[in-house]
């Protein structure tokens, strides 16, 4: 097994989880109702905790300590898709992102539950159970607001259109796709995307938004290779502000 392919896969998943977890945590104290502050914080804790476990796997494969990896890299060294780094915006924006991302995440972990790389398969089975609740949360709200009134519908529609190209960027192919697939580590991004379209559209079809025409959107790529929007570096600067004061200190 070639570690490069595996590491690339682990890095992009861990970075996605860390950055979206960080964004979710920004809702604490700012949610439209208290229950949503609490829900977004729960999801943030799950995601950041999951990213830490994935960085531990990477550490076991010879990469640096999780704290160093998470708090000391620059934006160009991050492999997250651009979807997760965008600022939270209004609640509809965060909700649509959460909906689109968590469907992909759940399906990714479901596929990875059968990975030939057993340490990852084990984590994936565990995370699937956690992300299931993120999915229920997203679906409930999408169905509720997607059938509520003119304003909620207009907002969701607008955010969906804005985020669709970024969401397709989740599935930016890795340079190691064929290797990952042939070694049975992962089903590959293309296969994942097909399952995802089916999954999100099944929910959207139950709302006044209707199923989305994904083939009409062009994916925004680059995140997986370290190409990011202007929003990631400031996020990382903020995240590491205290840590970098003295990376050797015990906080």
């Amino acid at each position, binding site marked *: 097994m070639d570690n490069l392919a595996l590491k690339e896969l682990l890095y992009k998943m861990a970075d996605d989880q860390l950055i979206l977890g*960080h964004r979710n*945590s*920004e809702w*604490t*104290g*700012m*949610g*439209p*109702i*208290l*229950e*949503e*502050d*609490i829900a977004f*914080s*729960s999801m*943030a*804790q799950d995601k*950041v*905790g999951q990213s*830490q476990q994935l960085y531990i796997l990477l550490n076991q494969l010879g990469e640096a300590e*999780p*704290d160093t990896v*998470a*708090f000391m890299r620059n934006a160009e060294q991050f492999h997250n898709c651009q979807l997760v780094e965008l600022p939270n915006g*209004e*609640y509809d924006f965060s909700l649509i992102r959460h909906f689109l991302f968590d469907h992909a995440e759940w399906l990714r972990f479901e596929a990875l539950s059968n990975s030939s790389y057993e340490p990852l398969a084990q984590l994936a089975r565990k995370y699937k159970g956690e992300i299931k609740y993120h999915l229920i949360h997203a679906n409930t709200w999408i169905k*509720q*607001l997607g*059938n*509520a*009134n*003119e*304003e*909620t*519908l207009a*907002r969701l529609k607008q955010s969906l259109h804005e985020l669709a190209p970024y969401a397709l960027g989740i599935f930016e192919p890795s340079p190691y796709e064929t290797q990952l697939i042939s070694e049975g580590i992962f089903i590959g991004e293309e296969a994942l995307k097909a399952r995802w379209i089916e999954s999100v559209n099944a929910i959207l079809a139950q709302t*006044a938004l209707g199923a989305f025409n994904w083939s009409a959107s062009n994916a925004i790529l680059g995140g997986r290779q370290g190409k990011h929007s202007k929003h990631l570096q400031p*996020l990382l600067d*903020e*995240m590491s*502000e*205290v*840590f970098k*004061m*003295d990376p050797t*200190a*015990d*906080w």
Partner: protein
Amino acid sequence: MYGGGNTFEAQQMGGVENEDPIKLAEFEARIARGEKIEPNDWMPALYRKQLIRMIEQHAHSEIIGALPEGTWITRAPGFKRKLALMAKVQDEVGHAQLLYSAAETLGKPREKMIDDLLSGKSKYSNIFNYPTFTWADSCFISWLVDAGAIVNQLANSKGSYGPYCRALERICAEESFHLKYGHHCVIHMATGTPRQRKMMQEALNRWWGPMMHFFGPPDKASVHTEILVKWKVKMATNDECRQQFLDMYVPKIWELGLNIPDPNLKKNPETGEWEYTEPDWEEFKRVINGDGPCNAERLAVRRVAEERGAWVRKALLKPEAAYTTPLA
């Protein structure tokens, strides 16, 4: 989080003379026997009013208290702290949720309480009107402000109103984790690098005054609250809470080699009471009346959150406005 500062405003006394004397006597006898009062039980209007005010202010303190610490979630150094602080602040929001629903059992809707918070009609714990400049400030809050809150909340959990007591019991169980987390953070700062120690000492210097204010003005200067004591609404005096806090935490602070910025602070071996320099009570009054370093900012943040979320709440409240697909 919560402090005695809320009891500063003059109590609106009177009103008991209009109550049915037989029912009132029965009510007071129940409380004297240690029974809990439940939402549908008879209660004097004054009891209801004071409890709403108190629980509501406690709830506001929890959500406003989430702000000064919340700004450090995105900057917490390392996974361990980041995860713990997220969970801690989430708990505080959860406390607000529990408390608003306890207050709602007395007849005031959450929306109305939040309106009163935003209009300044209803107060919250004064200490959250001070800024958190550094990570060390957030460590101070997690350890010592939560410690103060526990002193207060434990006392109140022995009160007479069932839903409030039960909420407080759950809250106190979570607060004890906050205390452990905060203490752990402060230990690492106070025994860390010279820079960390300096940060921690500076935070202590900034927060000691507000911490002494936290329990409210001295008993001798407080408005009389006999009836609230008798009804087990107010369970401990401001000075009792402050003394208990000093007794439990001053030795722990000194143990870490930190200096408390009050040269007169010492325990009188004869009385067993702590002696200290009175904090600036004029400043306390100014801040509680709106003129503190962060009052405007805290309320502005809360207001923005409320305004930005209005469309979501509206959609939840009005199922009859369900969207129907236009025919054309």
